[in-house]
């Protein structure tokens, strides 16, 4: 039996549900030595901003129990260089390229990015990173917030971007919220085609000897297996209430953990931190999912999506 592995996220058709998460796969070329890139369902780029960003000062990563913290600060060469120097190689892989975008200060930058990318065939979909914990967008009640920590801001932003592009829009949400469903709802109402869940949890780690934060910026984003239960819960919660396909991520390290996300309600999954540990893990998961379906005699991966047993 050749089970069907293909899924659809918005108008994005993936030959299998395995993607790689923004910021954890470079621009794919870094992985060319290790795997056949075209076996992947799709590739998501490092988040791109209009202007080049140098990123945060070094001391950008550290290890934590079953996870890691990062504070890269969205280092990227900016839109123009991305289009000229990175996109052509990405395009040659022959799989859908999802461009992750963010604004630095002014949300209007999202529109600039979306309009430019809208015209580019090699870009299959756009992921709105409104949840990078290393960049704070606007202040409410005197306190700093991310766009994706505020339903109204999320709605307004997604709505505006929606008007700027006809491409599949995937809104990537922050788990650092009281009610993920409320934010997901706002993104759906504003016209997002899909959701990416989850970005990193905000965390901090101190070096006891020096009493200094291990990251130079103090706080950063927690990723890896440690956060998996939070990710699975949020995906399951959102799936109960919001009729949008979900790209699930957060601590996926093998076929079994990928299945956990699909069963919880993710239509596709993204491998993040695990790429650093095992650069081949994403395609190992592709084969693993296929083997699982064959073993279980399930003809179609879609038959397990969101099918939590009781």
């Amino acid at each position, binding site marked *: 039996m050749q089970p069907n592995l293909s899924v659809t996220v918005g108008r994005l058709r993936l030959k299998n549900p395995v993607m790689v998460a923004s910021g954890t796969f470079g621009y794919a070329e870094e992985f060319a030595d290790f795997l056949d890139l075209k076996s992947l369902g799709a590739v998501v780029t490092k988040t791109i901003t209009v202007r080049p960003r140098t990123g945060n000062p070094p001391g950008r990563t550290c290890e934590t129990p079953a996870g890691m913290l990062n504070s890269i600060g969205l280092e990227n060469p900016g839109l123009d260089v991305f289009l000229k120097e990175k996109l052509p190689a990405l395009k040659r892989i022959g799989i859908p390229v999802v461009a992750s975008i963010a604004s630095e200060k002014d949300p209007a930058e999202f529109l600039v990015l979306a309009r430019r990318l809208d015209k580019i065939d090699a870009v299959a979909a756009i992921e709105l990173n409104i949840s990078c914990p290393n960049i704070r967008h606007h202040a409410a009640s005197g306190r700093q917030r991310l766009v994706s920590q505020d339903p109204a801001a999320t709605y307004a932003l997604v709505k505006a971007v929606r008007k700027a592009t006809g491409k599949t829009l995937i809104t990537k949400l922050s788990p650092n919220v009281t009610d993920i469903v409320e934010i997901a709802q706002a993104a759906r109402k504003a016209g997002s085609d899909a959701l990416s869940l989850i970005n990193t949890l905000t965390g901090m780690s101190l070096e006891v000897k020096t009493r200094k934060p291990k990251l130079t910026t103090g706080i950063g984003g927690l990723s890896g297996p440690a956060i998996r239960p939070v990710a699975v819960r949020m995906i399951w919660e959102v799936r109960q209430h919001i009729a949008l396909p979900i790209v699930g991520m957060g601590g996926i390290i093998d076929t079994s953990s990928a299945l956990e996300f699909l069963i919880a309600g993710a239509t596709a999954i993204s491998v993040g*931190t695990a*790429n*650093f540990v095992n650069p081949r893990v994403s395609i190992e998961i592709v084969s693993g999912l296929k083997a699982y379906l064959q073993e279980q005699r399930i003809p179609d991966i879609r038959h397990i999506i969101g099918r939590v047993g009781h």
Partner: protein
Amino acid sequence: MSAWQGNAQILSNRRIRGAYFHLSVMAARISAVAKPGQFVMVKVNRDGQEPLLRRPLGIHNAGVGRLSLLYEVIGKGTQILSQRRPGELLDIIGPLGNGFDTGPRMRGARPVLVAGGMGVAPLVFLARKLKAHTPLVLIGAKTGKGILCAEEFNACGCRVRLSSDDGTRGFKGKVTGLFKSMLRQGKTGMTVVYACGPRPMLRELSVLCRQQGIPLQVSLEAHMACGIGACLGCAVETHAGYRRVCKDGPVFPAAEIVW
């Protein structure tokens, strides 16, 4: 120059002394193409998440089919590595990074290698490569016991000078002090310096070499999540902006670094 990931059989893994270990693995795909100054990313535990990330270790030597690493047990990862046994498989990725530049301009060169502490690890491989130039090697450590590989360098035909902070072996003081005294003696005729060691040592060397107009290449360290250029975690500030230690380095011309 492409990197390989795979399971390398451990040939030996033994304590040299104190917390220092020497590990040798079968890894023909790496040893065949490795250059001095490159490194590997090692998954110290077979699988599992404690620790989660790989550990970067410099290539200490590369023979036919074989690769050797020299490491100090300083934390959980190296501790686990030190308990791995011959015959077991070690998941490694390499060779990674750029390596030392021993390019065409080396003709007639009189290279000096400066090692601080564990900085000797990648310099043995380099010394072998530069054998024809009979490099001068300066090795410094906190105590005499921390001075490693003097014999290996001797075996490569290098001239070796030692220093220890406490004076228990060789010159008393930092290896940069030894370096300065060599400069003062003025007999080295050095044309290029390669260095690996703690950042303060490299910083001081960079000042000295700049003053003398001698090109200096330094091998840097940074916390690495991926080691292959993907995470952008290992940034180092250069005069041309941040660069990735793992991909654009770990070896940089000292003049490029913002010390």
